[in-house]
C-alpha cells in the first residue's frame, strides 16, 4: 500500500447463507445454501478519488461499503484503510422522533463520533445547510421526509474524515436536495477526501466521479475514469470510445437482449480552445452497433442534467432482425446548449418505451459551479426594458 492509497482491497469475499425453515410445518430455522455477496474482489482506491459504485440490487455494492465501514467482517481477503472513515450507510440513523431537530443534531453527531464541542462549533453551518431554521425546534416527527433527510445530511457532511462512504443518499429527496448532495460531495472532493458513493443513478455523480465500478453478482467491472470532453479540448483527433470500455458501462435491465454498441466516434467541428466553447461547435456522435432483436426497439441519445433528468434526447428505431453492423450518426447543431455540468449517454428502449439497456455517462461535461446557474438551454429570450 503506497502513501497515496486510501483503501487497498485484496481478494475480498463475503459469504452469506439463506435461512430456511427446516420443514413447511416447523418453526425451526436452519442454515440454507450459501452464496457470495462479494466475490474475490481486489482494488486500490487513491486518496482524493471519487468512486461511483453502481449495479443491480443484491450485486454486493452495499456489502462492500459495510465491510469498509467495519459493520460486517469479510469472509476472506483483507481491506487496508489509510485514514478516518465516515460511513453514511443510512441517512437519519439514530434520530429520535419525539425530540426537536436541534437536539437530534447532537444525537446524530454523537453517533458519528462528534464531540459536543465539535457539534456546537458547526451548529450554525448545519442549520444553514438544513435550510429550515424556523423548524429547528420542532420535533422531527412533524418533518416531511425531505426535511428529515436534509437535516440528517447536513450533520453528516460536517463530519471531518478522510474517507466518506455514502449508500444511496440520493434515493430520497427532491431535485434540490439531490443537487445539494452533489455540491457537498464536490466540496468534500475539493478537500481531497476519498469518497465512495453507491447509487442506482450514476449519471448524478458523473461530473464529479473519477471512476465507476459496476457490480454484478458480487464482482466488479472497473471502468476507466468517465470520458470527458476535456480530453479532446486540445486535440484535432476525434475521440474514440471502444467496445471494451462500452461493455464496462453497459447496464442491462432485462435478460436476453442481444445488443452492443461496438464503437463511438465523437467528432467536434473545429478546434476547441476551452470547455466553455464546446457547444459553440457542431458535435457528431457516430455509433457502430450490432444487434439481434425479436421486436423493434429504439435507440435514444440522452443529454442529462446534473441530477440525471433528461434535458433533451433524440431517438431512432431499431427494426427487429439480426444486424451485424450498423452505423448511426447523431448530429448536435451548434449553439443550442450552454456549457453546464451534464452527461451524455444512450438508452435502448423496448416497445413500451422502457429502458432495457443503459449506457450511462458515455461522456461528461465537467461539474462547474460557476456555470450551473446559467442553465442548460441557449434559448434566445428577448428582454425589453421600459420606464
Amino acid at each position, binding site marked *: 500500500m503506497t502513501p497515496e492509497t486510501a483503501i487497498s482491497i485484496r481478494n475480498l469475499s463475503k459469504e452469506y447463507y439463506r435461512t430456511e425453515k427446516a420443514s413447511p410445518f416447523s418453526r425451526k430455522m436452519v442454515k440454507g445454501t450459501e452464496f457470495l455477496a462479494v466475490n474475490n474482489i481486489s482494488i486500490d482506491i487513491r486518496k482524493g478519488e471519487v468512486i461511483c459504485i453502481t449495479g443491480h440490487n443484491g450485486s454486493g455494492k452495499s456489502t462492500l461499503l459495510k465491510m469498509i465501514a467495519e459493520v460486517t467482517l469479510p469472509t476472506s481477503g*483483507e481491506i*487496508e484503510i489509510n485514514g478516518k472513515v465516515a*460511513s453514511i450507510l443510512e441517512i437519519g*440513523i439514530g434520530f*429520535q422522533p419525539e425530540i426537536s431537530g436541534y437536539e437530534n443534531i*447532537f*444525537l446524530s453527531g454523537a*453517533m458519528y463520533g462528534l464531540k459536543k464541542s465539535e457539534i456546537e462549533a458547526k451548529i450554525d453551518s448545519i442549520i444553514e445547510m438544513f435550510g429550515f431554521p424556523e423548524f429547528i425546534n420542532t420535533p422531527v416527527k412533524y418533518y416531511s421526509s425531505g426535511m428529515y433527510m436534509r437535516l440528517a445530511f447536513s450533520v453528516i457532511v460536517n463530519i471531518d474524515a478522510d474517507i466518506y462512504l455514502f449508500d444511496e443518499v440520493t434515493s430520497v429527496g427532491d431535485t434540490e436536495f439531490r443537487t445539494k448532495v452533489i455540491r457537498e460531495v464536490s466540496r468534500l472532493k475539493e478537500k481531497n477526501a476519498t469518497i465512495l458513493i453507491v447509487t442506482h443513478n450514476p449519471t448524478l455523480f458523473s461530473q464529479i466521479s473519477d471512476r465507476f465500478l459496476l457490480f454484478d453478482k458480487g464482482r466488479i467491472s472497473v471502468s476507466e475514469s468517465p470520458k470527458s470532453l476535456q480530453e479532446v479540448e486540445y486535440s484535432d483527433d476525434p475521440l474514440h470510445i471502444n467496445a471494451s470500455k462500452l461493455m464496462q458501462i453497459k447496464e442491462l435491465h432485462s435478460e436476453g437482449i442481444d445488443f452492443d454498441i461496438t464503437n463511438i466516434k465523437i467528432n467536434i467541428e473545429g478546434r476547441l480552445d476551452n470547455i466553455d466553447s464546446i457547444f459553440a461547435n457542431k458535435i457528431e456522435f457516430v455509433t457502430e452497433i450490432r444487434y439481434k432483436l425479436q421486436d423493434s426497439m429504439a435507440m435514444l441519445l440522452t443529454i442529462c442534467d446534473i441530477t440525471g433528468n433528461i434535458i433533451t434526447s433524440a431517438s431512432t428505431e431499431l427494426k427487429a432482425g439480426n444486424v451485424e453492423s450498423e452505423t448511426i450518426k447523431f448530429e448536435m447543431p451548434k449553439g443550442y446548449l450552454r456549457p453546464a455540468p451534464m452527461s451524455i449517454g444512450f438508452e435502448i428502449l423496448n416497445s413500451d418505451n422502457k429502458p432495457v439497456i443503459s449506457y450511462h455517462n458515455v461522456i461528461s461535461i465537467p461539474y462547474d459551479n460557476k456555470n450551473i446557474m446559467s442553465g442548460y438551454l441557449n434559448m434566445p429570450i428577448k428582454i425589453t426594458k421600459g420606464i
Partner: protein
Amino acid sequence: MSKIISPDGHIGTLDYLKSIWASRHLAITLAKGEIKNQSSMNITGIFLNIIQSLIGLAVYWIVFGVAIGIDTGKIPYPIFVLPGIFIWHYFSAITGYCSNCFLLSQILIDKLYFPRICIPLSKVLLGLVDFTIGFVLFVILFFCFRQSLTINWLAFPLIFIMIIICISSIGLCISFISLFSMDTTRIAAQLTNFLIFITPVFYPGTIIPENFKFILYINPVAGIIEYSRWSLLGTPLPDFRYFIGIAFTMCLAIAIFFIFKKYEKRITDLM
C-alpha cells in the same frame, strides 16, 4: 492512521477498552435520547415515575407491613422496603431493556460501527434514572420518618459500584443470549417475576430459615439489597456468604467482557 480489516476480526483487550472509552459519549447520548424521547411522550414526564414508586410503596406497605406484619425491628416498613424496591426495579428494568436491546437497535447496528457493548451499557445508564428517583425518594422519606444517619452511609458508594457491576453483567449476559434466541425477552420477564419472591425485597433475609438461606446466598440481587440496607438503614451486617452470588456476577462481568470482545465484529452477522 492505517488499519487492516481481516476475517478474524481480532481486537486487543487494551484496544477494546480504549474503543469503549472513546464511545462513552455515544452510550450516554443513546440513553439521553431515549430518556428525552420517553419523557416528551407523556405530560407527567419524570413525575410519573415518582407517582408509580409512591403507589407501589403504599401497596407493599399495606400488604406486607400492615396486613402480614413483617417484622422490620425499629425501622418503619416504608423505609425498610424502599432500598429493596429501587434496586429490584433497576434489576428488572435492565433485564427487560437488555433482553431486546440488539433487536431494537438492529438498524443502527446494521448501518454504523461502534463497540456493540455500548448498546446494553446505554440501557444500564437508562435504568439509572429510575434508580436515582427511587434513591431520592428514599432520602426524603428517611428524614420524614426521622431516621438518623450512620457511618455505614460512607460505604454506600462502594455498594453502588457493586450494584452497577452486578446488574450490568447480568444485563450484558442477557443481551448476548438474545442474539441467539428470540425467546430471551419472555424468559427474562418470567424469571424476574419469579425471582422477586426469593429475593429479600419485601422482607428481611433474616426471616428465611437457615436450611433455605443458600437460595439467598447464590442470588446476587439478594446480597446487594441486604448490604444496601446495612449501609443505609444500619441493619446488622449481613452474612458474608451473600458474597457468593456477588462474586459470581463479578466473574460473569469479566467473562462477558471477553465474550463481547471476541464477538464484537460478528454481532451484525449474528442478528
